[in-house]
Structure formats: C-alpha cells, structure tokens
C-alpha cells in the first residue's frame, strides 16, 4: 500500500547517486535490503518501481531485494536468535526484554550502471 512512496524514494536516491560525469547513464540493477519486519511487499515494490521508472535512466533496471531475517537479542541472557513466527520472547529464558537487532532494514545498498 505504501510501496509507491517507497519506490519513489528509491528512485530519487538512486538517480541522485549516479555520478555526474556519466553521459546518458543506464542503471541496470538496484540492490536493496529489506527486513522481514518492515511492512514492504517485494512484488508490490517491483511493480511500483517499474511504473515510475518509465522514461528515466532507471527504466528496465532490476530491483534485487535481499530480505533480512528478524534477529533478536535477549537483554537478560544475551542469546541471539532468528525469529520466524512473531514470538518476541526469549527462546532460552522466556524474558520479554528483547531487542530486535535486524529485520527492520529498508536500505538502498548500491546501484549498477552500464558502462
């Protein structure tokens, strides 16, 4: 639902990152990292990206999305583990004091431009 706004931000950042000296650049790949806990649907994002990149240097670029797992750390016993089914209680000591250390990412890592 909010993927269009996110796609627009991706395009804005990617376009601004193309080195100025490149004549008529063509971006071939855009590499993103998206955490499982961020509410982004990759297919929706790809669709929005395709729509808004028409007639821009990003037209036809492939959106590579690396999905980052939700990793938590227990503040009480220090154990780290990957959360699969939205249970945010320590798997070892059942503490509720749990810190999410990965899984909220919504980052643009890099772009690849045709030489």
């Amino acid at each position, binding site marked *: *639902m*909010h993927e*269009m*706004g*996110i796609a627009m*931000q*991706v395009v*804005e*950042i*990617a376009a601004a*990152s*193309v*080195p100025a000296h*490149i004549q008529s650049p063509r971006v*071939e*790949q855009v*590499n*993103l*990292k998206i955490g499982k*806990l*961020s*509410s*982004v649907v990759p297919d929706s994002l790809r669709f929005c990206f395709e729509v808004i990149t028409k007639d821009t240097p990003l037209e036809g670029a492939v959106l*590579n999305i*690396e999905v*980052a*797992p939700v*990793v938590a750390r227990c503040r009480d016993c220090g154990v*780290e583990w990957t959360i699969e*089914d*939205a*249970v*945010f*209680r320590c798997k070892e000591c059942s*503490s*509720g*004091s*749990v810190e*999410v*250390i*990965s899984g909220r*990412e*919504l*980052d*643009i*890592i*890099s*772009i*690849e*431009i*045709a*030489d």
Partner: protein
Amino acid sequence: MIYETELPKTVASRSSGMICAGVSVFLFKTVKEENAMEVEIGRKVLETNDAHARQNRERFAAAGVFVLNMMSSPGSGKTTLLEKTLVRIMPEIRCGVIVGDICTTNDADRLARSGAPVTQVNTDAFGGDCHLAAHVIGRAADGFDLENLDLLIVENIGNLVCPAEFDIGENGRTVVLSVTEGEDKPAKYPHMFRKCDSAVLNKIDLLPYLDFDMAAAEGFIHQVHPDMPIFQLSAKTEAGMGPWLNWLTTQVAESRSAR
C-alpha cells in the same frame, strides 16, 4: 568496477564481491553484468521522512508538547475513544488533534465539538496515501499554537500496516484493537504491535454477543510485545476508561517533568 561516492555509508566492509552488513552476509548476485559500474550507496530509503520526523520531534520538544500517534485498523473506534478522552482530560491538559483520513472531514467535525483545536489531513491530495508521513504532520502542526498545548494527538489513517513504518516525530504510540476484529491481529500485524507503547482493546460492551477470547487476544499482544500495557474498555459506555486515562496523563506528566 567500483565507484566510491561521498555519500554516507552503512555498509560495514567489502571483500571479493561480498558485503557484510550487520549480522547477515550475502552475495549481491550470482552473475554480474559485464562492464557494469557499481555505485555503493548504503542509505536508508526513508531517510527523508526520518529527517522530517527528527525536525518535528525537536520542534515538539522545544514547545513542550507530548505527541501521541494513535493507530488502528479502520472502524476500531479511535475517534469515539478520542472524543471521550478529550472530554475527560481537558481543560487540565491542553489538547490538540491532527486527524488523518483519505477523504472527508467527518472525524474532525466530531472531535471539534470537544473544543480542542483540530486539523483534518486528507491524504487524497497526496495520492490517497494510507499513512501520515512526517512532512504532512510538520505542515499540519503549523496550524497549532504548540506553545499552548500539552498533548497533541495524531489520529492516524485506519491501517495496521503502513503507519507503523513512518516515524512522524511522535513521543508515544498507541494501537487500538476492537473486539470485533479477531484475537490474532497482533500476530498478523506484528510490526504495528511491536512499535506501539500501549494497546487499547475497545468495544468490550459487545463481548456478550461475540466469541472473542480476551485471554487469547492479550496473549497474542504479549507474544509480540511482552509487558505492553493493555487497556480493556468501551469508549461508547466509558467502562474501563480510568486506566487508559491514567496511562495517557502519566505520559504527558512525565514528559513535562523531564523538561
């Protein structure tokens, strides 16, 4: 070929085609285009919103106003809860409300009867957005005399997904779930229930007519967010309003004394 730019980086290190960022190690892709130039970026996609949110937060802190972001699915009873809340805590606590909807000013009209200043944001002007972004809140806040407010409540757009993703510069977050919605919503929308600081279970006056399992609902909330305060209430009959109002007024008082 790697082209280094002057942009801030979050990528930790790079070695032979692999990026190590935080805890995950991954290959960018298996086949690299011949003659492609890679430009490292390492920026947050929502950095513009985050920057607006930071500005909002500084502005609210300078004015000494506590901002509550209230979120829920459509029809959970946020507006009724706010109507009843405003009546009980004003004028001791000076309140303002920003209310977001895709269309209509119906909610603002209802809330304005409390005497609190109310600004309606309709996101159809921004493409029918499903959430309130930080710059929209910044603009809406221009219409308030923030110095003379203790509490600014943002009634976000009814949606359990997108509003959780957008920081608006708030100081506290509450999610409202009504007992007509199903006990397992917290497990289905974990991001929202993780992000919020308290949960309201609304419409408890309907419990005799429903198969809603209150213990299961609280169990799902605490599975996603252990120890989160939960307030069972009926905004309509005003049963159970006390603990919710205590929590809210304590948040405002604590933020006031922290200054």
